[in-house]
């Protein structure tokens, strides 16, 4: 029989004013299994805890029930108290007689009666509690960062600076990501490349960082502290160790008609190319779709001209497997496709461009060498109209229901830069709202309006159409309540952003969850914003939700801090309240694994004795306690009741039900 101690807290008058605490404590003395029952003004106080410790020792208690405030408040406290007195911390149950009783009931008799039932219920449960010990699993002291944009770079640098090895897996031929495409950054208007490229170089030179560019995550096994990741290194047909980045091959390559993705396809590049001048690694890559040699077998010019013999047409994809303790997902974003937005005439008019295209057109390293020229005829546009919220905050189904968050600020930036560089241009901005929360953001926007004379028009654009070579932007001005049409030379769409599509595969591999917009879900919106619900997986940058560079960098650093916090540990304590299968009952039917959000359940073949010297091999479930989070979904799916949850076992819950229903 268990020896249960009951401790009823007054919580000053918080409980005692409505619940007859003395009576409750007195009644509990007669409960079967209870050998000690007391009440005290403040159980959580030093003296209160002392009382509990003393009782545990004196009465050799096997379990305790504290009738007090919510377990969400002080369960941890009382568990520590119990542990200090030599009792397993999981032999503690809390009866919530404050939030669920004294604070909501006025009648003393009624509240006292309920408190008695609640304490009894906790006693019924604690009698079935079993001592639990947190398990331990070792930690591999290496982190993986998926995505080599600013988020990935920042996270990797921070982790590496703390002394841990980091691998960056980047699917493109270079790290740098979206930020490398930008011209200037708000609200300071410093040059994007100037602040990003040093970081890229830092990465390349950091002895703890290994950049796996042109690579993708192929498979993930294991769990927090012990991920086993298979990485595909795509064939770039250039030996990374030999290429010096001299670019001779690029000049000689006869196939120069490939669309330059880095420049948003606004110009072309050779089949063998280095994406941009500051690429890291500064190594060429051959586009197999475009390379004449790879397609037809004839050519091989680059190989001839390569001084170091780096070209290898026979290269194949290779796979490497590495172990990591933690994974940071920083897969970034892309602008949405604008196919569904016919009203803006993006597909039909070369001079209707996206903001990211504008970035390239304004960038000194861009297709126009930084001179703003219309894509259609290469003339300098005089009237430029910006349209905000293209595909953002759009619940019609064409676009995205969320706010892309960065557009207001970069449009202000664009408008300002244009007006500064080409004071003769007229700049109009159609907006629904201008959202500028952030340090110095609103000031920045106001500068655009007040100092630079950008024409902000509150209203929606109904239609953009071409009339005699002019782009007619037809919209409404809600302030003046009139329909207006602006004859423009260039129209810039503040296109909504969405998570990079490859995130879906990554999420599946990591059993990380994804919301309806394909953003990765954080563990808790407020309190665990950089952690995925999958332990050991962290989220940085736009893969988790739209954000600008400062936010992305903060989040990346936060991720790094979390990762470092994880990797400094030699062993991880695992939550002991995890699912546990009874192998004798398990049918191996796989239903439990189907509902496990964490991939904690696997199946093993196990031999069972049947009696009479016979044995039988059966497939049975096996739960990895380091991965299981203890939700209990599997326990209900299991028809034979083989799966149970420690700390919330079926028997415990049923005994609670019994105690409550007993009249």
């Amino acid at each position, binding site marked *: 029989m268990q020896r249960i101690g009951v401790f009823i807290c007054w919580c000053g008058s918080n409980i005692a004013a409505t619940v007859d605490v003395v009576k409750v404590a007195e009644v509990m003395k007669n409960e079967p299994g209870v050998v000690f029952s007391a009440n005290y003004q403040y159980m959580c106080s030093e003296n209160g805890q002392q009382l509990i410790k003393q009782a545990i020792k004196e009465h050799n208690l096997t379990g305790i029930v504290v009738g007090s405030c919510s377990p969400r408040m002080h369960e941890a406290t009382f568990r520590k108290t119990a542990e200090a007195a030599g009792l397993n911390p999981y032999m503690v149950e809390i009866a919530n007689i404050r939030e669920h009783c004294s604070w909501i009931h006025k009648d003393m008799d009624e509240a006292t009666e309920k408190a008695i039932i609640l304490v009894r219920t906790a006693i019924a449960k604690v009698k079935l509690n079993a001592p639990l010990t947190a398990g331990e699993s070792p930690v591999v002291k290496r982190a993986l960062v998926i995505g080599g944009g600013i988020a990935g770079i920042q996270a990797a640098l921070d982790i590496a600076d703390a002394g841990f090895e980091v691998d960056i897996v980047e699917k493109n031929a270079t790290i740098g990501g979206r930020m490398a495409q930008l011209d200037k950054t708000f609200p300071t208007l410093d040059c994007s490349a100037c602040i990003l490229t040093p970081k890229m170089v830092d990465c390349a030179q950091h002895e703890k960082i290994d950049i796996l560019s042109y690579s993708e995550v192929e498979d993930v096994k294991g769990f927090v502290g012990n991920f086993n990741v298979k990485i595909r290194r795509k064939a770039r047909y250039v030996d990374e160790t030999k290429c010096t980045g001299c670019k001779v091959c690029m000049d000689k390559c006869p196939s120069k008609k490939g669309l330059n993705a880095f420049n948003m396809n606004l110009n072309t590049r050779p089949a063998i190319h280095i994406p941009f001048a500051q690429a890291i690694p500064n190594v060429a890559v051959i586009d197999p779709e475009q390379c004449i040699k790879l397609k037809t077998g004839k050519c091989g010019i680059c190989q001839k001209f390569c001084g170091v013999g780096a070209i290898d047409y026979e290269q194949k994809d290779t796979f490497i497997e590495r172990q990591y303790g933690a994974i940071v997902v920083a897969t970034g974003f892309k602008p949405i496709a604008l196919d569904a937005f016919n009203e803006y005439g993006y597909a039909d008019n070369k001079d209707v461009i996206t903001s990211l295209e504008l970035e390239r057109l304004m960038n000194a390293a861009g297709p126009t060498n930084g001179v703003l020229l219309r894509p259609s005829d290469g003339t300098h546009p005089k009237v430029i109209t910006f349209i905000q919220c293209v595909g953002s905050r759009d619940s019609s189904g064409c676009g995205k229901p969320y706010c892309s968050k960065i557009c207001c600020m970069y449009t202000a930036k664009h408008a300002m830069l244009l007006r500064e560089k080409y004071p003769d241009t007229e700049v109009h901005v159609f907006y629904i709202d201008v959202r500028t929360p952030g340090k110095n953001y609103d000031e920045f926007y106001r500068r655009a309006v007040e100092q630079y004379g950008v024409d902000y028009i509150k209203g929606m654009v109904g239609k953009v159409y071409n009339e005699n070579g002019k782009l007619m932007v037809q919209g409404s001005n809600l302030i003046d309540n009139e329909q207006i049409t602006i004859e423009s030379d260039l129209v810039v769409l503040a296109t909504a952003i969405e998570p990079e599509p490859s995130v879906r595969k990554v999420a599946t591999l990591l059993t990380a969850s994804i919301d309806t917009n394909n953003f990765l879900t954080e563990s808790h919106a407020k309190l665990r914003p950089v952690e995925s619900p999958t332990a050991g997986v962290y989220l940085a940058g736009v893969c988790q939700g739209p954000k600008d560079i400062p936010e992305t960098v903060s989040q990346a650093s936060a991720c790094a801090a979390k990762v470092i916090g994880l990797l400094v540990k030699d062993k991880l304590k695992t939550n002991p309240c995890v699912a546990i299968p009874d192998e*004798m009952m*398990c*049918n191996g039917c*796989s*239903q439990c694994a189907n509902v496990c959000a964490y991939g904690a359940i696997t*199946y093993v073949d196990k031999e069972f004795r049947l009696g009479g010297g016979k044995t039988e091999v*059966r497939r049975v479930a096996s739960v990895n306690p380091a991965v299981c989070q203890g939700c209990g979904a599997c326990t209900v799916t299991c*028809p034979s*009741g083989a799966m149970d949850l420690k700390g919330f076992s079926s028997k415990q819950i*049923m005994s609670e039900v019994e105690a409550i229903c007993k009249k």
Partner: protein
Amino acid sequence: MKDVEMKMLERAKALLESGEVARVIGWKKGDFCFDPAPASFETVEELDNFVYDYFCGANLSKYLIQMSKKEGKTAVFLKPCDTYSFNQLVKEHRIKRENVYVIAVECMAKLDIEKIKAKGISMVESVEVVGKEVKVTSAYGVETLYKPDVVLTKCATCTKTHQVKDEEIILHERPARDVDRFEEVAKLEAMTADERFAFWREQLSKCIRCNACRNVCPACSCVKCVFDNPASGIAAKANDDKFEEQLFHVIRAFHVAGRCTDCGECSRVCPQNIPLHLLNRKFIKDIDNLYGEYQAGETDEGKTPLTSYTEGDAEPNDVMNGEAK
């Protein structure tokens, strides 16, 4: 049916003789014309007692749980509806698929001897089926019955076609049927709660907790049932109280929800003729309505409706108020 039987026998003989399989599961002759029993045949000689007729209603798929563990391959004759159970069992890793040789066989709706007897016929000597007519010869004479009146309940609303990736098929093409298997369920749904309660009380009051429904059910393939597990908190054997059998049947129906192939064995074997299939069909109907049509056992892989979800699933309270579609 006779020609099908001949073909089956031929195949069984060939498979055993060639050593391709170690045993064949089929039916053997009983004491009467209407009580063939499931049996396994290990030699060609044993096949003398082999039979396949209009009374071979039993679903043989569940036997494969044990049989597929034995040495050598097991050949099995599965009727169209049995193949669903088979798939479901394979899906749940209960049958070692590689140890089984499946021969899908024609069914043509099996007869229910109890229904024949309920027509006042006893001492049945032989039964012959011609089209929709059933000619029953008994010690008291010959009577002709209308077949749909005397088929097994499970066959009356069956539209199943064989689903297993067969090794072979012995089957005549069967015309598609247009029957609504949810008719009875809908009738019950249309009643008031009091009427429904009265109906089920009346029916379940007959339950003797013999567990025939559970033990025959291919979805109830647990190594040990929760009701037999003293640790489960609901283990029970008693029947006579108002609650017990209700609990048993609710939990059983819930446990097989999304997995029940609607093979109808539960109702076939119930000694008290409780229409147990109407319990499972309610789940099937709700699943079809709420989460899209789903037929358990159509394939031997994939998740079941209760182990999957969509973000826009109906809300329980709407379902209760009949507002969910």
